[in-house]
């Protein structure tokens, strides 16, 4: 499989050649990265199963489904703004994805101090996302009386799915924060100086996936 001939091939030829070659199928993909991709594929099925269940139950429901933009509105300067907190959370997560992408880029250039600070910033943004989520939960439970098993505004499943899906996503974010911090400090200590910085990219894949899931939750839960 000569790399030079690459550009002349159509994608289909590349696919066929790669699958029929020896040693590796995903050329130039380290083990860890391949494994993370496959794991994310599996995780995609988990989140999709959650979201599809949410769809099925909501569509079967005859009780009223609350209007999310009203439930999740927040007062700013005395005016209630719909989905204000969610908007901020979304922007935070996107920003963290940006810093993470930069960290991966710096990793390729082996600038480990930059990598450390960018990953650290990503982790901080992630932690603040979880914090805001906690705030949102508190508000929903305390001010609106929504519980996982009841909802004064209508169908109980509104709360059930909200807490379950955002909770599961929040767990992913929290785990990601821990993961980021561990890798960041290892990078700083020079653990990967003599090998490659692929671990940064792998961590990045996970983090972007968490962001990706939020894109879908945002669309289906808060806007639909």
């Amino acid at each position: 499989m000569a790399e030079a001939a690459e550009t002349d091939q159509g994608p289909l030829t590349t696919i066929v050649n790669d699958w029929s070659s020896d040693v590796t199928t995903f050329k130039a993909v380290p083990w860890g990265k391949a494994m993370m991709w496959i794991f994310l594929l599996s995780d995609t099925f988990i989140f999709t199963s959650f979201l599809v269940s949410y769809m099925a139950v909501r569509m079967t429901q005859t009780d009223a489904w609350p209007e999310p933009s009203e439930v999740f509105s927040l007062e700013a300067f005395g005016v209630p703004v719909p989905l204000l907190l969610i908007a901020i959370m979304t922007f935070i997560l996107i920003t963290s994805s940006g810093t993470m992408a930069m960290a991966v880029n710096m990793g390729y250039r082996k600038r480990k101090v930059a990598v450390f600070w960018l990953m650290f910033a990503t982790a901080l943004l992630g932690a603040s996302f979880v914090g805001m989520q906690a705030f949102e939960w508190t508000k929903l439970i305390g001010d609106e009386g929504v519980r996982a098993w009841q909802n004064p505004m209508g169908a109980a499943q509104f709360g059930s799915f909200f807490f379950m899906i955002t909770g599961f996503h929040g767990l992913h974010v929290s785990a990601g924060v821990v993961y980021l911090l561990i890798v960041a400090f290892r990078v700083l200590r020079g653990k990967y100086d003599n090998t490659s910085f692929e671990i940064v990219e792998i961590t990045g894949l996970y983090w972007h996936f968490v962001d990706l899931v939020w894109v879908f939750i945002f669309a289906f839960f808060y806007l639909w």
Partner: protein
Amino acid sequence: MAEVGQQHPIKVYFLVWALLFVFSIASYLVDFFAFEGHLRWFLIVVFMLLKAGFIVAVFMHMKWERPTLITAILVPPLVLIVLMYLLAYEADYAWASRIVYFGDVVEPIPEPPPSHAAVPH
């Protein structure tokens, strides 16, 4: 953009970063201006897919991977579309049976709690 990206990745990152903000604001505006019905759903899905696509393609470097990896990761989730479609189809059926046989009525969207009554809609 793809060619530029491979030579100046950092610039592409900033560009995508900005685009993600734009799409988020756009989907937020869909809600703010209270589009309803199919137009609303269409816009939400379009912006969602655009955001997801950019994250996967650029931030997750899918754009620069070989087609082998791209197809291996992106093709299997297609079966989930079958699951989604069929469950949606069936949900309507079960919903109808609740309306017809249990006399359930479609409840109006409830009043929001008093503190949020003045949401523009």
